[in-house]
């Protein structure tokens, strides 16, 4: 299978000394439970930004930004992107930051294809590892443009499937499948067993949540098959049971795959978006609890990967806080949506 990733050569954990040292500095800018709690108690966005300003790095990103959802979100995303780029610049950090860069890249490709299909003039560009113009040209038929093999084949396949089905959601489903294939490849070649298991858990969670969503949306199973590819962790039959079977069966599927603890309360599944949102939060928290103990390792890739995941969760939490305060959503409701922090 073609992949963007390079097979890592065996590296001693001490080789990560510089990267871990840098991460220890950057970790000072990671959110913690105390800051989140005080940010929850304040009245408006301005005050939240003032509380966050006690964190280095993050405070610089939010300086002189209009206190509205769009500019704040842009500032947060570009802050995260810059952090990824900084880690990715180091030879050993490249493969670690790749997982997080994928979500940016695949979202960008989806948007470029959707804009092309909607015949929309190219609008603003979002962070990504490639040149937007090149991908736009490629999507509009200029196949001579240089593009990574994975992206090239993903775009060609997406356009071909769309051409035959004219189903908009398929654009996203095909690209999600390629993204998940990349995540699985990453897990397979990961030299750290911790990161490997984390990636497998993420991979399984992603399939589960997509199946739950497909069940709620009453999608045809044939459509859902677009996202699936053969893998050693989850069979299509299990996912089919979730989508087409009764709610009671879901608990059994999750027990069978060792993921029962993502369900809430008594472990009974409810086909309701707010219940699904709680499950999504549980999944994020599970991944955080999984990587958290390894932050104290002196050397190795785990603290670096953990920091990048913590940063991505911080962006989620900050978005919840800032947007929530902007829209006047209550403190308790926001607290229920916040994910666990790297530092409790």
């Amino acid at each position, binding site marked *: 299978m073609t992949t963007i990733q390079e097979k890592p050569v065996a590296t001693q954990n001490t080789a990560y000394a510089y990267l871990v040292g840098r991460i220890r500095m950057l970790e000072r800018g990671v959110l913690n439970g105390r800051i989140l709690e005080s940010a929850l108690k304040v009245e408006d966005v301005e005050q939240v930004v003032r509380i966050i300003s006690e964190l280095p790095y993050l405070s610089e990103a939010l300086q002189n930004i209009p206190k509205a959802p769009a500019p704040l979100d842009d500032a947060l995303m570009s802050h995260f992107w810059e952090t990824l780029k900084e880690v990715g610049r180091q030879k050993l950090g490249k493969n670690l930051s790749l997982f997080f860069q994928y979500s940016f890249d695949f979202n960008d490709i989806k948007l470029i294809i959707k804009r092309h299909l909607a015949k929309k003039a190219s609008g603003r560009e979002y962070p990504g590892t490639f040149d937007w113009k090149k991908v736009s040209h490629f999507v509009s038929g200029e196949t001579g443009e240089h593009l990574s093999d994975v992206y090239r084949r993903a775009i060609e396949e997406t356009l071909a499937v769309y051409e035959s089905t004219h189903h908009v959601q398929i654009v*996203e489903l095909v690209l*999600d499948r390629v993204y998940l294939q990349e995540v699985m490849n990453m897990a397979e070649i990961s030299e750290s067993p911790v990161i490997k298991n984390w990636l497998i858990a993420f991979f399984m969670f992603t399939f589960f949540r997509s199946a739950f969503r497909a069940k709620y949306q009453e999608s045809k199973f044939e459509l859902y098959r677009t996202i699936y590819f053969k893998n050693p962790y989850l069979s299509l039959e299990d996912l089919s049971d979730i989508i087409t079977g009764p709610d009671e069966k879901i608990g059994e599927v999750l027990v069978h795959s060792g993921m029962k603890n993502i369900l809430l309360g008594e472990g009974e599944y409810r086909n309701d978006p707010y219940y699904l949102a709680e499950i999504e939060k549980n999944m994020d928290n599970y991944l955080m609890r999984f990587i958290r103990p390894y932050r104290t390792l002196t050397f190795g890739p785990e603290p670096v990967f953990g920091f990048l995941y913590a940063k991505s969760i911080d962006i989620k939490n900050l978005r919840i806080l800032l947007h929530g305060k902007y829209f006047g*959503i209550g403190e308790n409701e926001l607290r229920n949506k916040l994910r666990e922090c790297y530092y409790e």
Partner: protein
Amino acid sequence: MRLNVNPNRMELMKLKNRLAMARRGHKLLKDKLDALVQDFIKVVRENRTLRRDIEAEIIKAFEAQNKASLMLSEEDKELVTTLTQQKIVLHVTTRHITGVKVPHFDVHLEGNPYSYSLVTTPAELDEALSSFFQVLPLMIKLAEAEKAIELLAVEIQKTRRRVNSLEYVLIPNLEETIKYINLKLDELARSSVTRIMRIKR
């Protein structure tokens, strides 16, 4: 105000016919006005209930949207809204309420409203989207009711003006003119009787 007519029998007959016609027209218009007002009140009441329901639904939909937007980046928002699978088919016909032509909208939503990723979007988005798609046909129904109210109100205003002009202008004028002509004709009759009596003597 008296009309400017010659006080003769011919005119008197014409005016009497006009008066009878005006009275009949006035009665008919008054009946129409009553019917219009009745229908207007009925539509306004329906509209009030519909508006109350829609406001509750819209608040629910916007709350769901705000909750979903807590989990969406700007790029995700653009991705969700750039291309959609769902079509809104709107058939516009007309119906009559007490002779007033009002539009009638038939809305059908076709296709799947969910045209975004199952992996990168939050579950709350499904709720927000389905709330908006539930509220959309109701909003079109409300637009239909409000347009009907507007057209009925214009028609009521027009009819009331006609009724008033008949009741307070045309009919009194005709009555006054008929009375005047009658007086004139009576006077003429009396003077001719006096003249004949004098000639006989």
